[in-house]
């Protein structure tokens, strides 16, 4: 097991370096001067040169990349051009907020996905299956930013039950004043993982039910509920792995939903970084999100291998 973990970690290192390179290049192929956002329009050439040197934009690209990586390894992702605050502090705060949203959405999506998937797979080709698979297809096909708007129209504008924007007064805490802000964005965000988990679990359940051991269990005289328990046990590892990856997609793809609900997370940060052309912030946010995704992939792989020994050998 240890060998497998080490091998996986060694395999991840070049990916991490390449990801950092992509983040760096992405921002440096940008047309236009990165300092446009901070310099006054009538700034003298000297001031511009001074600023350029201060941010290190005057050095050759490989040197800039090297310095950026070196600083990043020491926990310094530079200073946001727009706000003047350290990028790492801004990103950490935003990641926390996105994390609350994404984890809640994942839990909702996972719960309903597993439920619908099991039911659909177990009662395959009945009306129950048709209803569950239709919900799943709708879940993966719906433009979630639109679904968010529709939910706001229903629950905020018409019924006036839940707030439409923001995450509540002051910092986050798990009380009703804050959690009522979480409901609409989390439900909106949960439809995609719900659809994907439903599809996966439905297919898995079908596969498991057609295996010989199920026949053996039945002929042993087990009740259908007990057989069902075995199906759940066999489907669980894959379902959890799929959900783990979905959590990564939600963390990285929260920008549309955060925009609709003005949720102050990474998506929101990314949005302002893009439109204010705040390159250090943009670079830092993308890097942190991508690295988190790589890390999550690694954890899922290792977790899966520790549950299912067949994976290690391949």
């Amino acid at each position: 097991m240890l060998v497998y973990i080490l091998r996986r970690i060694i395999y991840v290192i070049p990916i991490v370096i390449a990801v950092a390179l992509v983040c760096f290049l992405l921002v440096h192929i940008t047309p236009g001067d990165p300092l446009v956002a901070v310099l006054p329009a009538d700034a003298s050439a000297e001031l511009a040169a001074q600023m350029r040197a201060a941010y290190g934009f005057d050095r050759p690209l490989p040197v800039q990349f090297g310095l950026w990586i070196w600083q990043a390894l020491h926990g310094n992702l530079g200073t946001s051009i727009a706000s003047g605050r350290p990028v790492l502090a801004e990103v950490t705060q935003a990641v926390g907020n996105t994390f609350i949203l994404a984890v809640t959405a994942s839990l909702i999506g996972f719960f309903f996905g597993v439920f619908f998937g099991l039911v659909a797979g177990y009662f395959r080709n009945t009306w129950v299956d048709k209803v569950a698979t239709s919900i799943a297809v709708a879940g993966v096909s719906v433009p979630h930013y639109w679904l968010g708007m529709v939910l706001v129209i229903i629950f905020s504008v018409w019924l006036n039950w839940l707030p439409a924007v923001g995450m509540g007064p002051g910092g986050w805490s798990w009380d009703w004043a804050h959690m009522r802000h979480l409901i609409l964005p989390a439900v909106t965000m949960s439809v995609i993982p719900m659809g994907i988990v439903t599809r996966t679990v439905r297919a898995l359940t079908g596969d498991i039910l057609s295996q010989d051991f199920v026949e053996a269990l039945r002929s042993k005289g087990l009740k259908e509920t007990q057989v069902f328990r075995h199906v759940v046990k066999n489907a669980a590892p894959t379902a959890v792995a799929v959900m783990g990856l979905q959590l990564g997609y939600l963390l990285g793809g929260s920008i549309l939903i955060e925009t609709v609900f003005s949720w102050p997370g990474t998506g929101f940060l990314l949005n302002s970084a893009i439109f204010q052309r705040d390159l250090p912030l943009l670079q830092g946010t993308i890097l942190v999100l991508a690295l988190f995704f790589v890390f999550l992939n690694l954890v899922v792989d290792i977790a899966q291998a520790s549950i299912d020994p067949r994976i290690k050998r391949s």
Partner: protein
Amino acid sequence: MSATSDAALQAAPVQKARGYWATVGRRFSRDKVSMVCAAVLLAIVLAAIFAPWLGLADPYQGSMIRRLRHIGTPGYLLGTDELGRDMLSRLIYGGRLSLLIGILPVVLAFGIGTSLGLLAGYLGGAVNTIIMRTIDVFYAFPSVLLAIAISGVLGAGVVNSIVSLTVVFVPQITRVAESVTTSVRNLDFVDAARASGAGAITIMRVHMLGNVLGPIFVYATGLISVSMILASGLSFLGLGTKPPEPEWGLMLNTLRTAIYVNPGVAALPGVMIFAVSICFNMLSDGLRSAMDIRN
């Protein structure tokens, strides 16, 4: 011996076995859900193409005195938007850009990804390593993040959003193409072609392409749904189409402020994105099960 078998052969009715694709086509055309979805998509596409000849109102012509009319107002079947422009006309015209920026990236990525995957899968070795390891790096980014990062860096615009989505989909299609090609390359008929002296390009083009194209195509049709949502999403964020062009994602964005005044009209563009996206998903599912001949 030969006399009897000849006689038997002549007596047997001439019956040509139906080819694989003909069978798939027949199974596909019998699937009611797929046919309904195909009809809906065809209607939307045709309406978008022939929009100028449908006698619609000018999609750019606004009016301050008839802003945000409700759905069903006489003369404005689907109401008017925040600048008083006819919604029915804008929704139909909007299909032109929305479908273009949603479908074109998948088509481009299909071409590029299939070529890369075929090369990597057939040649193997160092070529495979270089192509597939590069692909792995792009896999390290969640697709929405990658699309938004590239679009954000390139700036708003139709071409830029098509480019960014193509970059997102190429790795996914390449990976599928590579794995299908690898599974085909060691089959007997490829060996036979190689033994008969066919060159690498001939083998890839003539013998392998036909066998790998089907699964890749099905996968790509499934991506169109994602692409539609993402493309309109980019416009929704202000990273795609620019006003006053009619485009569903952008319309949804500009109508957001109107949800308190006229929620029905504000939600309409999303219905179009949803409809197109779900139809492509259903079509892809139908195609997949039609190609799964064993069942």
